[in-house]
């Protein structure tokens, strides 16, 4: 199918036990794709959590995913940030690169160009912290691979709509 597209969907849920399992179980049980998923409580007073899920599918599948999410009992709101106006997306990665000599210097130089920060360092390793789009992170990680990349930890995408409107 050629009309498969990547969508970023924001889901506001009650922060109660099992809610994440419901969302994940829905995706696995119905054969939908998860590219990334992030979750954290965003309103501790009313125990609301926000899930950002990046998925892909045909328009019919995406419509199904949103309808299926929306009928979960603890779900308050489902928004397709890809379809509903403009939004910004960011991802954070911690990237560990080990090496000495030229490779070590080159990794530091590239980190500077990509505006990655060094947050841990030993004589033979760096941990870089980097925030940006998924593509930017992918590019940096790709460059680090020949320079001694040993470990990556990524948050997955978080996203929010532009402008004054709330979800």
């Amino acid at each position, binding site marked *: 199918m050629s009309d498969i597209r990547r969508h970023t969907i924001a889901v506001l849920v009650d922060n109660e036990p*099992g809610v994440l*399992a419901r969302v994940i179980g829905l995706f696995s*049980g119905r054969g939908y794709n998860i590219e990334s998923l992030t979750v954290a409580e965003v309103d501790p007073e009313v125990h609301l959590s926000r899930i950002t899920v990046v998925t892909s599918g045909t328009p019919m599948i995406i419509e199904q995913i949103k309808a299926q999410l*929306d009928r979960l*009992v603890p779900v*308050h709101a489902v928004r397709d940030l890809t379809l509903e106006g403009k939004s910004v997306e960011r991802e954070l990665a911690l990237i560990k690169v080990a090496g000495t000599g030229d490779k070590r210097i080159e990794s530091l130089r590239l980190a500077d160009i990509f505006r990655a920060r060094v947050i841990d360092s030993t004589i033979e390793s760096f941990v870089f912290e980097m925030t940006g789009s998924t593509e930017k992170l992918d590019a940096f990680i790709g460059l680090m691979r020949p320079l001694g990349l040993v470990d990556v930890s990524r948050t997955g995408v978080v996203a929010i709509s532009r402008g004054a409107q709330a979800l």
Partner: protein
Amino acid sequence: MTDQQPNGAEIVIKALVDQGVDVIFGYPGGAVLPVYDALFKQNRVRHILVRHEQAAVHAAEGYARSTGKVGVVLVTSGPGATNAVTGLTDALMDSIPIICFTGQVPTHLIGNDAFQEADTTGITRPCTKHNYLVKDVNQLARTIHEAFHVARSGRPGPVVIDLPKDVQFAPGTYVAREDVVHRTYRPQTEPDPKAVAAAVDMLEQAKRPVFYVGGGVINSGPEASKALTELVRTTGYPCTMTLMGLGAYPASDPQSLGMLGMHGSYEANLVMHGCDLMVAVGSRFDDRVTGNLTKFSPGSRKIHIDIDPSSINKNVRVDLPIIGDAGATIAAILAEWKRRKAKPDRVALKAWWKQIEEWRARDCFRYEATDRVIKPQYALERLYAATRGRETFITTEVGQHQMWAAQFLKFEQPNRWMTSGGLGTMGYGLPAAMGVQIAHPDALVIDVAGEASILMNIQEMSTLAQYRLPVKIFILNNQWMGMVRQWQELLHGARYSESYSDSLPDFVKLAEAFGAVGLRATKVDELDAVIKEMIETPRPVIVDCCVDQKENCFPMIPSGAAHNEMLLGPGDRRESSVSDEGMVLV
């Protein structure tokens, strides 16, 4: 004041009474003993002791489907909960409102692999509409009221409430039903007036229309069936029903085309294929209904009325979705039709009905009549003739007998037909019939069964005996898992792998062993007398009706085929009728 607070178990009973529950189906065990103790000390909620937890859920389903109320189940932890899973899945697939209380090990033992511990909320998450684990007794009453709201509103479904034993013992505060409002769950029931107007536009313009109605109309309540009947008659358009929708529109009405789908009527399926406007009401374009999706009703515009937005555009893209309760939406369409004094296109409609009558004249349920052996279709025709005019409720198991029952028994009203449609659960019929009989003690309740299916929950004969439930079990005994054998005949070169019902019990003696009455019919001329005796016996009865072993269920849309590619009978069998893609379908 604390010592005057009810404990968790008492809160459960109080909440049930508050919710208008007068009967529950269950089976005790260690982790629910406090609730059973609370049951013992009161007489407002009656408990029906089943013989297996699966049957408790099916009985509650039968109760719910024949009354429109929520069915309630009470089982213990571990195996009690896992045994209930089939019933819960069945209720989810067929959108039946069920509350299932499961006992759980005390909160401090959860996760310790304690005796009879199972991760009940984990296991039942995908097979319930929603589930709860209640860890705080002060949340218990609120949770129960919320659970009833979730189970019965929107698209109904099963809800599990997992109750740790310490919570059942702990004293807590009771909250009344009226004081609980759900934070988020408020499904849309009233249709968008603009969509209703658009639907009436399309209905007015239609030349070859059809109403395609499903279980959503039944779930919406008897008023929905009345409104539907009025709308269908006012427009003069044909109406076909899904397996779940039988009874939504009177079967004897000339505008009824009967059931559609894999074993539905020829005329219903050809109408679906050839229509220019399809109005789906509370039906979900299930694969048993649509056949091959790429060839499904190619020339029609489609209106889909459903209370569940996720049903819209799931299998078939529709032109006009209307989110709302089936009854409310039909009533709104009817009101708009009347307000406009709308008229159908008489000329086109006349031509459409002429075409439909030609299809109907094929008499697709015809079978070879004989006095040599009881044909299963003949047995059901005689059963129907004998039960007509009585207050009759039919349940079924799953297989050929189920399809024949759907074809040959006619339902004039909703809530009279209980069958496992979505999940296709063999063993459903007997416990469901128990639940129906509990709700309607004086009615005639018949489980049309096969000899294989009935053995899957045969232990419930004991429940029938205990509560003196005069359920009639009408077994069409062909000594085969008939539908399996039929598929093996059509698709697997007649290699009948493991589908023969070997070593069957003597069903007459089996009935007697359970304190019921056993009857047998082996010859055509015995049949009527046996059916008469079955109906007139005021006790549970098993009829062992020995039918033609080779009969197959027709008409049939082979897997992967379209509505206009139906096989009408054994003579119509085409070797190439099933494609490679069709072979992998179920």
